[in-house]
């Protein structure tokens, strides 16, 4: 819910409201007195009616001027969620883990039920009504606690966070959940915790515990790598691991590239169900097939990426200001036929060129899907108000989905306009704002440059001589080696040189600073960072055309720089050949399914622990977007099995996995109740862990949170200025008519 209020802006913003109001009212009264006095003393014969008209017009202008001085701002306040009702909702976890008896025959459900029955009388006093629900794979209403506990069979999964989310959406006064705290889906606990805190509804957990011996499981769920990568670049390969553990522990994982161990780590797994992702940066090396094999525990999964010499790169270039950089950037890219450039010039530049191809765009798309056909979008000397919020959002979505954006601007006045925008949030740097001392110095210098442009008499006749000093890029101190560093060769000729740069406040944490200025306090000149699945980079200099003109024509340093820079930001193309095990837990004589992502049907083979090979039947499961082939078999013995998929080119990906007597699920692993997780979540929402009746307290009134404010200046509109001028002009005409002029 929002409501509107007004406040003083500008220099009056920091004044106490009474003082600002007093000042404005005083000025207003003084202005009115002056206006009346002025027209009382006006010479000539004025009728009272004419005098009133003139006073009115002049007073209106004065009042509007005061309005501008007061700089009123429209403040939109977003109120926190409305006050909750007085209904208590009790959720009962009916998953299999809650119903599995220990050696004494006790279940977690029974234990939690006993605890809640002690606290229930107090709850009935506090709340006007109590609703009961049971949940496992989904949520259902129940008429009473007994109904929730006894009706229906236990579910195969625990959708704990989904059930809580659904309940919170109904805005109850409080929630009580009888559970062991183990969500066995891939739902993110941290994400739900943030949502629950924002809701402001206290959650109470009644933990269900018993004495089962805990088990554990590990599943190397998926490995991913791009289908094709350029030689001597870097790319990311990722392994996704699902593990269920009884207590917090570290899971060792390794990556082997072409049979050689190249990386390893220990992933932290919390007690319970975990989905862990391990992205690894891999050097592509020279052309050829690259087999990437991830190993975790007794499991293995591999995929294949092709390292190629070159590939076509579609570049979308968007220019916001007329400048020479485009000519030289285009020349640098066109020297390599694998780059294809599509240019958009901001319509305000009023430049119309015959498009070289039919792919021309009139303006930057507002939909990320239209950007997807490009690997890189270059934004050159763009101004914040040239890009609509939708265009900026499209760029953010495009990068998040795997695209690359290179933002180039040497102009601090242009970059400061992006402060706080969606685009800046994506970029690897925080731009200096108008009030930053460093930026002020640059603007002062730019201002002096512009005012010094007047030509002296001698120069008018003889012509001037332009002195521009080009400054070289420098590598940041202590920068680790990476293929991105290949942008700059070691000799000085290959170090880019620039004439001007925009100030940034800082590179963001996690961003990779590739170049800084070499003199004095270094400015960040070039930085990049991963954003979602793509890369965002900022080059805070001109487009380096002066550097190109300063180099011998047989030098290819500029071409190499631009091409390497764009390649370093380009998304990986498609996914390399990999096999995914679709059946989570393999058991003897139970079908296990696999899929591979080749264009044509691959050959699937299963290899038993004894080395016996068995060819599998393949079926097409492709969708419009992704090719997929599925095959399955039923293991005939326990032990470590292996499945290989070989594509038409002879490339091979494989998975190795254990086969047990019975399938294992997180529900039946007898994991201990996550008491610590429940306690933390409960306390963060203002609730508690209910282990006896005294733990259940009347929920406190939600602490009033200040509303969010969004101020928007109201005075600086063209309409208001036109009205002022109109009033003034009318007064002049009236004065003329009544012979006062």
């Amino acid at each position, binding site marked *: 819910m929002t409501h509107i209020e007004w406040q003083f802006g500008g220099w009056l913003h920091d004044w106490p409201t009474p003082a600002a109001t007093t000042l404005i009212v005083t000025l207003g009264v003084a202005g009115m007195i002056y206006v009346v006095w002025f027209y009382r003393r006006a010479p000539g014969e004025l009728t009272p009616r004419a005098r009133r008209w003139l006073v009115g017009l002049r007073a209106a202008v004065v009042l509007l001027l005061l309005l501008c001085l007061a700089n009123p701002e429209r403040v939109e306040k977003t109120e926190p969620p409305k006050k909750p009702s007085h209904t208590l909702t009790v959720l009962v976890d009916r998953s299999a883990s809650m119903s599995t008896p220990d050696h004494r025959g006790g279940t977690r459900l029974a234990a939690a039920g006993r605890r809640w029955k002690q606290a229930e009388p107090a709850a009935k006093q506090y709340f006007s009504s109590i609703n009961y629900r049971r949940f496992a794979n989904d949520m259902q209403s129940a008429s009473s606690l007994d109904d929730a506990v006894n009706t229906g069979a236990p579910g195969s999964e625990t959708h704990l966070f989904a059930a809580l989310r659904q309940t919170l959406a109904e805005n109850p006064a409080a929630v009580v959940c009888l559970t062991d705290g183990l969500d066995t889906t891939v739902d993110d606990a941290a994400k739900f915790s943030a949502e629950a805190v924002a809701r402001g509804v206290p959650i109470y957990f009644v933990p269900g515990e018993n004495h089962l011996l805990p088990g554990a499981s590990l599943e190397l769920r998926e490995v991913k790598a791009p289908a094709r990568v350029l030689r001597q670049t870097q790319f990311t390969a990722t392994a996704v691991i699902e593990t269920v553990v009884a207590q917090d522990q570290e899971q060792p994982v390794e990556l082997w590239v072409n049979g050689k161990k190249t990386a390893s780590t220990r992933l932290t797994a919390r007690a319970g169900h975990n989905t862990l992702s391990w992205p690894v940066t891999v050097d592509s090396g020279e052309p050829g097939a690259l087999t990437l094999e991830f190993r975790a525990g007794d499991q293995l999964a591999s995929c294949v990426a092709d390292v190629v010499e070159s590939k076509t790169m579609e570049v979308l270039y968007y220019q916001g200001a007329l400048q020479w950089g485009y000519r030289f950037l285009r020349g640098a890219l066109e020297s390599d036929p694998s780059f294809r450039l599509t240019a958009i010039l901001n319509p305000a530049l009023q430049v119309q060129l015959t498009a070289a191809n039919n792919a021309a765009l009139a303006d930057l798309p507002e939909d990320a899907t239209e950007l997807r056909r490009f690997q890189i979008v270059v934004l050159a000397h763009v101004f914040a108000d040239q890009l609509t919020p939708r265009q900026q959002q499209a760029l953010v979505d495009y990068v998040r989905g795997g695209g690359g954006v290179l933002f180039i601007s040497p102009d601090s006045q242009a970059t400061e306009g992006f402060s706080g925008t969606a685009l800046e949030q994506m970029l690897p740097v925080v731009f200096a704002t108008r009030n930053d001392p460093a930026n002020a110095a640059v603007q002062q210098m730019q201002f002096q440059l512009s005012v010094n442009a007047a030509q002296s008499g001698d120069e008018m006749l003889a012509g*001037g*001589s332009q002195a521009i000093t080009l400054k070289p890029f420098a590598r940041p101190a202590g920068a680790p080696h990476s293929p991105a560093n290949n942008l700059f060769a070691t000799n000085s000729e290959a170090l880019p040189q620039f004439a001007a740069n925009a100030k940034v406040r800082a590179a963001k944490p996690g961003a990779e600073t590739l170049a800084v200025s070499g003199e004095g306090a270094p400015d960040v000149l070039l930085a990049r960072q991963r954003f979602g699945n793509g890369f965002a980079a900022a080059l805070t200099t001109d487009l380096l055309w002066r550097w190109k003109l300063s180099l*011998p024509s047989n030098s290819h340093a500029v071409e190499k720089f631009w091409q390497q820079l764009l390649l370093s930001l380009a998304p990986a193309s498609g996914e390399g050949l990999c096999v995914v095990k679709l059946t989570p837990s393999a058991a003897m004589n139970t079908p296990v399914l696999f899929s591979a992502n080749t264009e044509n049907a691959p050959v699937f083979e299963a290899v038993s622990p004894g080395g016996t090979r068995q060819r599998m039947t393949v079926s097409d499961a492709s969708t419009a977007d992704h090719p997929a082939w599925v095959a399955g078999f039923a293991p005939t013995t326990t032990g470590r099995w292996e499945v290989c998929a070989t594509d038409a080119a002879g490339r091979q990906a494989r998975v190795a996995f254990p086969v047990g007597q019975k399938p294992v699920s997180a529900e039946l692993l007898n994991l201990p109740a996550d008491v610590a997780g429940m306690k933390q979540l409960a306390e963060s929402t203002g609730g508690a862990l209910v282990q006896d009746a005294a733990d259940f307290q009347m929920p406190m009134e939600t602490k009033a949170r200040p509303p969010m404010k969004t101020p928007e200046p109201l005075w600086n509109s063209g309409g208001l200025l036109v009205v002022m001028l109109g009033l003034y002009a009318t007064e*002049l005409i009236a004065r003329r008519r009544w012979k006062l002029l």
Partner: protein
Amino acid sequence: MSHHTHFSRRRFLQAMLAGAALAPGLAVFGAGFNRLRGDRVGWARLKTPHPWWRRHATADPILTRFFRDETTLNIDPIWYVADADNLSELCRYPLLFSQGVGAIVGETGRSNIAEYIRRGGFILVDACHDSGVTPDFDEFLRQQFAFYSMVLPEAKIVPLPPTHDVYRCHFEMPNPRPLHTYMAGIYDAKKEAHGLYGVMIGSRMAGIIGVCGWQCGWDHVEYPGVQPAGTDVLCMRMVVNIYIYAMMQGA
């Protein structure tokens, strides 16, 4: 006589006009044209052994002001000198304006021009219409063509068709042929017959050669009558078009 009678009708109208002129400026308060300008660039004339290489140069600020008024180009109002014998001086400017490169006979100057163009520079050659400066336009063109064929053998000189983007990339030229100016306003059919010639290296344009006398056009703004009204503006529009076209081609 009362005080207010000193405010004449003329002054009243001036005040009104000033208000009207101010209105749009206030309406776009804080959103000045300058905001959209890119990095600053200089306008330079190529200094050659030709005695008239700086002919009309003192009027170049008229052109640069026109650039700033009519486009968002951040061009320096000063006109600069780029000596053909000084390569680093040439390379400070992405585009050079010249009275003709045919006069460059020294080896240094010639190789510098070739190197400048190979690095990505652009040269706009436009002959002054004064017969004291350019006695024979055909001969002038022959000199320019010969120069390029000698110092830049990879370049080809091609006539630009009326459909070319230089006639419409920023200003839509009324007649898709180059506008010519004439000495003392006397029409010269032989001169008029020449269009514009592009210096092409592969698919990229590295220069334009013409005998149109545009500089004479924008320099003669104070002598209306010799040229048809508006000639100065049309000349400057044509140069703006060529300049912007050069910016948008690959180097």
